[in-house]
Structures are given as structure tokens and as C-alpha cells.
């Protein structure tokens, strides 16, 4: 092997680095730059540097009625927070319980259960939307047909302001729990048997073993699953966009959808880029805090 400086290897890297630069590094820098401009795609005016004006509009611009910032942005942020707080812990907890349950079954059946739980994840969001809109419909909806048959009161799954987000979370749980289950199950299987054998000699029973061996050993994988899930939840778009279009009364209008509407339906790209960066900062801060908290424990 030659030990001198050999640049020819960069030939192999070049195709990827070009794409990486063009569609990852450049958009990040470009997006940040864009967020300091007033740039409306359809207007004849050229992009104009406005400093922090876009951020001010979202966060603290005073209005005549005494409120500050963009009320829709605030509402969208709040809707997103509600989704993250509901969906992420539920998904991870449910996935953990399922993975633990599946890990107790005999090997061959484990594979079948895992496969079954993973099937919904393979289905594209528009099909998921068609299916669950039918389940959730007020009239002729499958859930309400069954509730009526059981002589229970009908639920306004998607039309009740207090219910819509919870319905979306329920659907998300079904759609996305498979991935975390598979990852957690693999993590559980990686724990060496010797630990369990030692615990058995010490007389540890099922729950204690789970609490003192499985969970602590699973921590790195669990951390990975939690962080990934939370990052994903912040970017939620398809579920509310397709199923509720942000309604009723904007109660499920999440940040990504507001960014989409602002940028591509109202053509305010500078403002859209600024909100994207705010979302990015939120996600980054959140992930950092999570890493810190989990590391310390």
C-alpha cells in the first residue's frame, strides 16, 4: 500500500459529494440565507433583504389588538407540540411493550408477529388516509357503525375539535409502531443470555429481570428510537394534510403544513424558510436535551 498522499480516491467520492453539496449542504445554507429575505415567488419585486423581519413576524411582531407574532404560526406550533407530546411517548411505550411481549414467544412465531406488526408501515399515506377516513367518518364510518351496534354513543372522530388530534395519533400509532418494534426487538435479542442466567440464579423473577436487566441494557437502542421518533413527530405532515386538512378550526394544522401552505400556496418563500429554520432549531434543541437527559441517567 502506498502511504503517500493519494487523491485519486476522491474520484469515488465525487459523485456523492456533488449530490451532497447540491441537495443537502447548499439547501441548508441557502435556506438560512433565504429566511432573511422577503421573497414572494409570484410578485415582480426582487428578493429584498429584511434581516430578522421574517422571524419577527412569526414570533414577536406586535398587532393592533395587543397580540404579538403570527397567530397561525403559534396555533400550528401548539398543534405540533400536542402531536409530539401525544404520539411520541405513546408510540415508544407501545412499541416497547410489544417488543417485550414478542421477545417472550418462541423464535419462529416471533418472526410472524413482527411481520404482522410491520405491515401497516409499508402502506403509503394516501391509502392510509382513504382507509382511516372511512373508519372515522361521522356518517357510515366503520367505527361509528360498530359503536351504534354496541349501543354506545357515536364519536365525532374528525369533526370534534377536542377529538381530531387524538384520532390522528391513534392512526399514527397503527401506521408507525412497526419500525420501533423491530429495532427494539433486535436490541432485546442482543442482550447476552448470561445476564439472565445470573439473575435467575439470584432468584430474580420476570418483572424484576425486565426492570434490572432488559431495560438498562436496552437504553442505547431505546434512546435512538426515542430521538428518531420525536424528530419524526415534529415533522408530521401527511396524516393531518390528508385526513383532516388541518381542521376542524385549524386544530390539526401542524407546522409542516403551515410551512407548505405559506411557501407553495401563498408563495411566501422567505417566510416559509424562516419557519423551517425555527422548526429545525426546535428539533435540534429538543434532540440535544434528550441526549443529555438520557446520558446522565
Amino acid at each position, binding site marked *: 500500500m502506498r502511504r503517500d498522499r*493519494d487523491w485519486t480516491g476522491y474520484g469515488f467520492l465525487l459523485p456523492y459529494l456533488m449530490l451532497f453539496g447540491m441537495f443537502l449542504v447548499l439547501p441548508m445554507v441557502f435556506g438560512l440565507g433565504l429566511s432573511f429575505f422577503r421573497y414572494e415567488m409570484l410578485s415582480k419585486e426582487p428578493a429584498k433583504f429584511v434581516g430578522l423581519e421574517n422571524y419577527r413576524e412569526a414570533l414577536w411582531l406586535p398587532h393592533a389588538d395587543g397580540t404579538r407574532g403570527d397567530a397561525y404560526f403559534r396555533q400550528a406550533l401548539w398543534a405540533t407540540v400536542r402531536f409530539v407530546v401525544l404520539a411520541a411517548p405513546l408510540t415508544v411505550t407501545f412499541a416497547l411493550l410489544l417488543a417485550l411481549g414478542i421477545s417472550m414467544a418462541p423464535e419462529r412465531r416471533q418472526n410472524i408477529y413482527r411481520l404482522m406488526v410491520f405491515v401497516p408501515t409499508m402502506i403509503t399515506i394516501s391509502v392510509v388516509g*382513504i382507509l382511516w377516513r372511512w373508519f372515522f367518518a361521522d356518517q357510515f364510518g366503520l367505527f361509528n357503525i360498530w359503536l351504534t351496534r354496541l349501543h354506545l354513543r357515536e364519536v365525532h372522530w374528525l369533526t370534534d375539535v377536542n377529538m381530531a388530534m387524538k384520532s390522528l395519533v391513534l392512526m399514527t400509532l397503527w401506521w408507525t409502531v412497526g419500525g420501533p418494534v423491530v429495532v427494539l426487538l433486535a*436490541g432485546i435479542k442482543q442482550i447476552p443470555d448470561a445476564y439472565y442466567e445470573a439473575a435467575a440464579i439470584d432468584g430474580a423473577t420476570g418483572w424484576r429481570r425486565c426492570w434490572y436487566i432488559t431495560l438498562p441494557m436496552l437504553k442505547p437502542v431505546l434512546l435512538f428510537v426515542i430521538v428518531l421518533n420525536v424528530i419524526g413527530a415534529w415533522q408530521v405532515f401527511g396524516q393531518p394534510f390528508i385526513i383532516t386538512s388541518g381542521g376542524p378550526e385549524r386544530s390539526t394544522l401542524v407546522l409542516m403544513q403551515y410551512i*407548505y401552505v405559506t411557501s407553495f400556496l401563498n408563495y411566501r*418563500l422567505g417566510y416559509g424558510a424562516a419557519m423551517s429554520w425555527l422548526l429545525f432549531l426546535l428539533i435540534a434543541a429538543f434532540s440535544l436535551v434528550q441526549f443529555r437527559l438520557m446520558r446522565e441517567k
Partner: protein
Amino acid sequence: MKEPWYSRAGIEALVVLTALLFVAPVVLIYVTSLKPEAEIVKFESVWPKDAREGIRKNYEYVLKTPEEIPIFRWLGNSILVSSSVTLLVLTVDSLAAYALARLRLPGKKYVFAMIIGTLMVPGQILLVPVYLILNKLGWIDTPWALIVPHGAGAFGVFLLHQFFKAIPKELEEAAMLDGAGKLRIWWNLMLPLSKPALATLAIFTFVGSWNDFLGPLVFLDSVEKYTLPVGVALFQSSYSSEYGLTLAASVICTTPILLIFLVFSRQIIRGMAMSGLKE
């Protein structure tokens, strides 16, 4: 595992029940798409009374009005886009991963760190700037917009890097003694030896692109260029209360991907597991 048999059986019964609950909605897509509308809204039984009538009403309409629902057009677009993305990602990522894992490059450490540093960057926040870049390139409303940007993701480079690193040095040295160049080693040694990782990456990339919704929604304008997910979503918005029709379209959209899933389930599951156990 030494739990008493009854608690193990109890837990497994719960698992089975949950697993069935997960599959049931998917089964419902299929059986309900065979029912005429009146039967769906009454929902007296899960199975269709007369599947032929449902097929005639739902599938024939969906398949025989291509000017209104060009579903095979969308299917073709989806196949073209997803296969191209997969081919691009596999080629570009494996070349890069080979260089990063096996070649001596000045400053390699920094390049690798930079690429890995973007693993956690949420792609969706790049939507607006990527749109403007694609617009400058004149790629809006072309398949290129759905294909090329996907090549920038860091996941594949990372996955293949880990795999290539584990291949024994001796094999590479033997090939070099035989006079094989770097390109030959990449093609004749690295790629065949990492088939499982390549298969995993291929399936992940394909499925990810197949299910991509926001990309085609933002980057395409003309209906005949849509991919299945956006096409079906458009269809459902104009026939939102006709469950039979929209479910028949869903079946056409879902079947190819479910087949891939069933055939490659082992690779998919292994890939999912690998993605969480790296480090």
C-alpha cells in the same frame, strides 16, 4: 426464560391479538374494495355478498376511465422514479462508502464526520430551498426532481461504510496482487461481499421513494406526471365519499409494495434492526 407457562401464554395471547389488530385494516382494504357502495355503508358483514358486483362497480370504473384516473400512468411513474432513485443511491453511496472505508484519502476523517453529521438533519426543513434549486435547474414538474435530490442522503453511505469496513483486508490485498484496480475491487469484491447490506439499502430506498408524498406534491404540477401516492390522494379528494372506488384504487397502489415486502421481508426486517444497532 422461566416464567410459568400460563403467564407466557397470557402474554402471547395479547401479542397475537395486537398483531391481528394491525393486519385487520389491511385485510379490510382488500375485502371492502370488492363491495358495492351500499354494502360498505351498511357494513352488515366483513365479507362481500357478491364480489363480482363490487368488482364490476369499483375496479372497472377505476381501470376504464384512464383520462380521469390515469392510474397505470401513475403506477409507471412510481416504478420509474423509485427504481431510478434506488439505482442512483446504490451506485453513488457504494462508491463513496468504498472510498471512505477502504482508501487512504487526505482529510477523510473530516469528510466522513461532515456526512455523518447530517444524518439527523430533518429532510423536510429543506423543502423550500430544494424547490428553488430544482426550479433553477429547470427540473420542476420532471421526474428528475423526485430522483436526484434523494442521492444526497447520508444513511446509505453510513450503512455501507460499516459493512465495507468489516471485510477482511487480506481479500483486498490478494486482489491487488492479481493486478486489480480500485474500480475492479469495488465492483468484483466489495459489492458481491456486501449483498445483504446492498439489498437492505435498496429496499429501504425503494420503499421510501415509493411512499414519498411531500416531494411529488410540491415538485410536480401536471396530473399525468404524478406518482401513485399523490395521484391516489387527488383521486380520493374528488371521490371522498365513494369508499368502494377509492379502496379499489388503494388496492392497486398497495399490492406491488406488499408483494415486495412479503418477498423481501427478511432483508427489510434485518435492515430495520441494523439501523438501530449501529454505533
